[in-house]
């Protein structure tokens, strides 16, 4: 069958769609809702083409190819229409970053660990590094948003196991709905409501578990935006390695792709689009392997206490201990989660080196839990590769050598503990339930000094016996076993039972209960037991604030715009002393991080201070989940050097993000001193702009800029300033308060104007009194402490790269803290529906 696509005659296959035919022949047609594993849907309308003789613009993903078709994929009309359609789609998706002129600079500069709140731009998006929407908008040249976008104000759904759902990003491509139908044969999730209320959800507001979800994670895999995200994986950005391997949680031996960053497994998913994997295969691997509880160093018992020692010492100790237990007093106990190569070495060690007949291979039961009790009485020394022997038998043994991944009562009472590699940390061959050999491929490094199991045993063997024939690699062992690596494959034709029925899942691995290491599984268990994990929500309850509240009581809390909250806190001592430009340090509870916040306003008479706080990381999330009437542990302030209020002439004050709140009092004070104050406030889009009225009241001129031009002028605050300068406005001083990126571009782009620019720096702080030095920065080559010398500095003198690097200094720890605490901690989910101040903007 011949067709013509863009003037090229092409051989088409009967039954394929225009899109399939084009892609097969290297002709690219932009597309979004279609997915190779899924039936055509035709919802996004991006893949439209022109077909001669056909009316209108058919979607190439759904139109079957027919003999003699003449297809055009790249006409001017199509390009325009596609761009306009994408433009419409972007009205329901945070899109300002897609049309931002400084996008690339921002990508490089913004911190990575700010994916905590609802997503309002690319820089905080879960999907930033692998985003089909971003790629498409670049392809189609999307440069402007036609009308003001609509933000959904949906709370991020974080109460389900493993999956975060931020419907504010959803473009309703329906991939998740379709893959669920394909993989589960049912619609756990579907479209709910109609017209602009349409969203993805479960019927009748059920939670995922009630709706029949098995957490196979296929929906997360196909989501082209950051709407559905793997709660653990989302922090790590674009993976740098992708390894195909076999899952060894059970003998289904599913084929998986493990994604790694810096040799650390961060995400796993099924290898095949058409087959789901179970909850463990999809979600439980990275968190399990990266668990902070993993055994990392070899330990030996010295004076009744286990002490970390070198691997040589450990091996030596093993050899010494085992020396007297050759023959039937020794036993080796492992299970089938070790590779065939591992087990070959174990067996050989038992039989040849220890000359014992007691080599036990446990076959785990359905749940993966199996322990042995029938070890012969004569056995006095054992090597175990997991938690296989009930603790009450411990006293039977004189010597216990534990090779393991996690500590337990068993390891704690062992004579030697050796950390080992497992799963994707090692290579080898495994046998599935159909006696088919499957390859296990190393995808990441084991923690600390952990080694593959065979290699630990070989070292012991070498020390005990001189006759041990040394293997140099796993392949060596495979060869000896006669495995033909060419014949190993990952082929698979059916889904594992656990992917269809959650109850079929394994719960134990190497004798360890996985729930202890994978927090999402606790949530699954809670759901099963009818105690779903519920989020704390801010349904406004009448709070009676007493006439004489305690210090640091939150008197009012309201959401200004998504993720940004205004707090009024009772702190009379601070209110009495505060001056414009100063800040406070807040501790939410006794064990919290100390976080500096600029003072937005204060009232000496009422004894209150006002803070504007943005949900960015773990501590700010903790802060925003404090409700009216609750008390903060500490508020210290006012700190920092106040802004010098004097006659400057004409002052341009630029505010962005949380900085908008911080300039209110400053602007008022400067104006009262006789300065002409122009306030320029920047926001990504109209729904992120706040305090317009307050700022208009305290300035001579107020200019709102939005990056997508949906409210006020287009661009960043600096663009507004540049336009002012171009129009001949004489500015004597520029003050920039906002995120480091915003202040940096303000500094860079005003350097040639000769106007003095100051910025308010907000690095990591600890004590806030100039003692610890955590907040040090370089200004004009000199080291300064932001807490006492600042926060205001000459923006043109600041070393911005250092500011960025220092802010990023603890991002790995932050990510670690957030990802480990998030699923298990009850975390704030904000309701934007009824009481929220942003209601009017929706």
């Amino acid at each position, binding site marked *: 069958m011949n067709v013509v696509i863009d003037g090229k005659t092409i051989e088409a296959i009967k039954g394929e769609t225009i899109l399939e035919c084009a892609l097969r022949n290297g002709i690219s047609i932009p597309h979004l809702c279609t997915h190779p594993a899924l039936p055509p849907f*035709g919802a996004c309308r991006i893949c439209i083409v022109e077909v001669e003789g056909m009316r209108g613009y058919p979607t190439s993903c759904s139109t079957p190819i027919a003999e003699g078709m003449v297809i055009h994929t790249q006409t001017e009309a199509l390009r325009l229409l596609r761009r306009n*359609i994408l433009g419409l789609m972007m009205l329901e998706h945070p899109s300002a970053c897609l049309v931002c002129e400084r996008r690339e600079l921002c990508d490089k500069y913004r911190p990575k660990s700010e994916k905590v709140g609802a997503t309002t731009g690319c820089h905080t998006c879960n999907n930033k590094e692998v985003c089909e929407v971003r790629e498409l908008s670049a392809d189609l040249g999307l440069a402007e948003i036609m009308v*003001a976008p609509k933000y959904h104000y949906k709370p991020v759904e974080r109460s389900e196991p493993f999956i975060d759902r931020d419907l504010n990003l959803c473009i309703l491509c329906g991939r998740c709905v379709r893959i669920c139908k394909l993989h589960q044969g049912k619609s756990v999730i579907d*479209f709910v409501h*109609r*017209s602009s209320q349409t969203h993805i959800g479960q019927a009748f507001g059920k939670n995922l578990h009630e709706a029949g979800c098995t957490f196979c994670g296929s929906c997360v895999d196909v989501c082209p935006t950051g709407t559905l995200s793997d709660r653990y994986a989302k922090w790590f950005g674009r993976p740098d390695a992708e390894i195909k391997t076999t899952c060894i949680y059970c003998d289904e031996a599913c084929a998986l792709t493990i994604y790694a960053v810096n040799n650390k497994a961060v995400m796993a998913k099924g290898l095949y689009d058409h087959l789901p994997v179970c909850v463990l295969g999809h979600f439980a691997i990275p968190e399990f392997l990266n668990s902070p509880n993993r055994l990392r160093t070899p330990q030996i018992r010295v004076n009744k206490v286990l002490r970390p020692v070198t691997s040589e010492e450990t091996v030596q100790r093993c050899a010494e201990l085992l020396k007297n237990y050759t023959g039937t007093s020794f036993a080796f106990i492992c299970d089938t989660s070790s590779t065939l190569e591992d087990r070959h070495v174990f067996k050989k060690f038992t039989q040849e080196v220890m000359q014992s007949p007691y080599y036990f291979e446990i076959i785990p039961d359905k749940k993966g839990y199996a322990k042995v009790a029938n070890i012969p009485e004569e056995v006095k020394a054992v090597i175990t590769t997991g938690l296989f022997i009930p603790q009450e038998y411990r006293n039977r043994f004189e010597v216990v050598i534990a090779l393991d991944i996690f500590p337990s009562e068993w390891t704690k009472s062992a004579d030697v503990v050796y950390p080992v590699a497992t799963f994707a940390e090692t290579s080898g061959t495994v046998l599935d339930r159909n006696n088919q050999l499957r390859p296990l491929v190393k995808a990441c490094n084991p923690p600390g000094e952990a080694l593959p199991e065979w290699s630990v045993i070989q070292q012991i063997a070498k020390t005990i016996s001189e006759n041990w024939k040394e293997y140099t690699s796993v392949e060596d062992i495979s060869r000896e076993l006669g495995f033909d690596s060419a014949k190993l494959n990952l082929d698979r034709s059916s889904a594992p039972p656990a992917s269809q029925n959650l109850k079929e899942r394994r719960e134990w691995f190497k004798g360890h209960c996985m729930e202890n290491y994978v927090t999402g599984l606790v949530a699954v268990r809670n759901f099963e037991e009818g105690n779903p994990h519920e989020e704390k929500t801010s349904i406004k309850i009448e709070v009676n604030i007493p006439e004489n509240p305690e210090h640091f009581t939150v008197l009012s809390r309201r959401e200004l715009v998504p993720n940004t909250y205004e707090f009024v806190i009772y702190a009379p001592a601070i209110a009495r002393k505060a001056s414009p430009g100063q800040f406070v340090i807040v501790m939410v509870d006794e064990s919290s991080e100390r976080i500096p916040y600029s003072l937005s306003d204060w009232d000496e008479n009422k004894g209150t201070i006002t803070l504007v706080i943005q949900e960015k990381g773990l501590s700010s999330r903790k802060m925003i989940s404090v409700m009216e009437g609750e008390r903060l542990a500490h508020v210290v302030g006012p700190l920092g050097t106040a802004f010098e209020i004097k006659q400057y002439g004409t002052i341009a004050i630029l505010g962005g993000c949380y900085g908008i709140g911080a300039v209110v009092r400053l602007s008022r004070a400067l104006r009262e001193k006789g300065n002409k104050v122009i306030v320029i406030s920047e926001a990504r889009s109209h729904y992120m702009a706040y305090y317009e009225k307050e700022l208009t009241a305290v300035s001579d001129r107020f200019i709102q800029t939005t990056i997508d031009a949906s409210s006020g002028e287009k661009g960043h605050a600096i663009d507004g300033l540049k336009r002012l300068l171009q129009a001949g406005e004489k500015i004597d001083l520029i003050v920039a308060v906002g995120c480091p990126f915003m202040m940096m571009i303000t500094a860079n782009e005003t350097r040639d104007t000769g106007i003095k620019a100051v910025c308010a720096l907000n690095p990591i702080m600890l004590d806030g009194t100039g003692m610890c030095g955590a907040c040090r920065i370089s200004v004009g080559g000199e080291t300064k402490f932001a807490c006492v010398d600042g926060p205001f500095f000459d923006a043109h003198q600041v070393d911005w790269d250092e500011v960025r690097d220092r802010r990023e200094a603890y991002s790995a720890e932050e990510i670690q803290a957030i990802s480990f605490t998030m699923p298990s901690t009850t975390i704030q989910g904000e309701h934007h529906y009824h009481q929220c101040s942003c209601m009017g903007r929706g």
Partner: protein
Amino acid sequence: MIAEDTMQILYERAQEEWSKIEKNTLPVVYVGSATCGRAAGALETEEIIKNLLIKNKKYATFVEVGCMGPCALEPIIMVQPSDGIPICYGPIKPENAEEFVRRIFLEEGVWEEKLIGVMSTDEFHGLPPITRHPMLAPQVRNVLRNCGLIDPENFYHYLAQGGYRGFLKALDIGADAVLEEIKKSGLRGRGGAGFPTWRKWSFARETQADEKYLICNADEGDPGAFMNRSVLEGDPHSVLEGMLIAGYTIGARHGYVYCRAEYPLAIRRLEIAIQQMYEHGLLGENILNSGFSFDITIKKGAGAFVCGEETALIASIEGNRGMPRPRPPFPAISGLWGKPTVIQNVETLANVSLILQRGADWYVQYGNENSKGTKTFALAGKIKRTGLVEIPLGIPLRKVIFEVGGGILDDKEVKAVQTGGPSGGCIPAEMLDLPVDYEALTKAGSIMGSGGMIVLDEDNCMVDIARYFLSFTQAESCGKCTPCRVGTRAMLGILERICSGKGEMMDILRLETLAQTIKQGSLCGLGQTAPNPVLSTLRYFRHEYEEHIKAKECRAFVCGPLISYHIDPERCAGCTMCAKACPVKAISGKRKEPHVIDPGTCIRCGQCLRVCPTIYSAVYRRSGSRVRYEPIKERKKKTG
């Protein structure tokens, strides 16, 4: 071969039944009791008449019939004296019932004021025939042939009117000949798009499959449209006969009627009719021994407008969310459960039975070159005689408005005619000589649609009309495809902005760009036609948009935020009526001195204008440069 004798017996029985009515000894009272009649109080009227007759020892036979059409005259009661010609009266509201009984039954006279006409082609005892009634005279009642005349729940009544003779003919001549007959009739889909019926049938007929389906689309959802409901309530068998013929022709074994659940009476009458068909062997296995088997199932729609779209309707029957899917493949190739499926509108099927009963040659006498036959319309808006009408295609729009509809209310100026419901457009007054046919309406930027026709006068704001229709499609968008879901909302936002005086000239350009994107990019007909009301008003009434934006002026005084209230100091006598009535105390002034409205406080509720005594008429409204002294018409909301 065919069990003709079975049918013969039925027809004889039908004749008997019908002659009971025709050669009546007792008077027969026909009560128009379709939903429209019921809404006007027909059942109460009937009840009162019955009770009064019993009280006065008078006897009559009562027949509940369907809708005759003239809504303004509902409830319509037709009385046939013994052995006489029926005389039609209306409106007989419950409060008129007593007088009605007195005049007609006790005094045995005629109630001239309520007389519509006699059911005859000629004058009868000096009474005008109903065909001469100005609303009915220009009409040709083919689809509505039995509506209002027969008892829709009486199977024999339909038979007596020649019912099922079309189906018998179809069995007689065979499927190919039926297809030829339909082709010759030039029948086009009455659901709106006007796709030639025979083409659809032949696609499905030619497709090889073990199972084929026929669906009757009774998911009438246009606001204010009730053509299909009237047919289903007044003459369900005519539609079911059409289904039999269509099913037979394409080779279907199963038929579905997809009817919205908001039509309970229509569904009940369909159920009764289907039951009767089974009882008399017109449905089920081997119908009339012809070898043709057919079943009909009623599926109730849950009221989503989009389910009128073929593929969404199919999804809904299959038990899925009613969302359209892209075509091709077309339903005629792969439809319900993946099998060839033909979906026809109620009116199309009612036409099919008629074409087979009377022949294509007879049928083509109505209509013009490309649009054959007749079309029903739900006539509404600023028109004197609203109601359900049926006119031959091709007659000028003007004739429909001024002859059938009797012209504009209060003899104002007609501004435009909106056809095709929310998918259609507005045709301006200058174009009223346009023939009512598929091509001409499309060319004018509107569509035939399923038959909504709303007449707009100078008191209608065209921007507001566009906004209204768009708000409907926006709310009914299924949410699947981007252009329709997001685009309609974006357009609606702009229209709302313009109507509230915050528009800018760029908005017109934005509307046009958005409209083109939605039209070209949407998945289904709902989206593709959703911008039509905006595009057609932009085409013919652009000046109104510009007035709203530039001069902040709404010439029709509809868009509230563009209207301000003032008191003419020359006229105001200081009676204080307005100040007392003002709910926000925006009016100040001393007694017997001219009053003033504070524009900042005024909420534009219009209360002052309503209470200002007509001898002064001092309160006036201003919008842009226009000033209006006349009081607010409360009727306005109706077209809303």
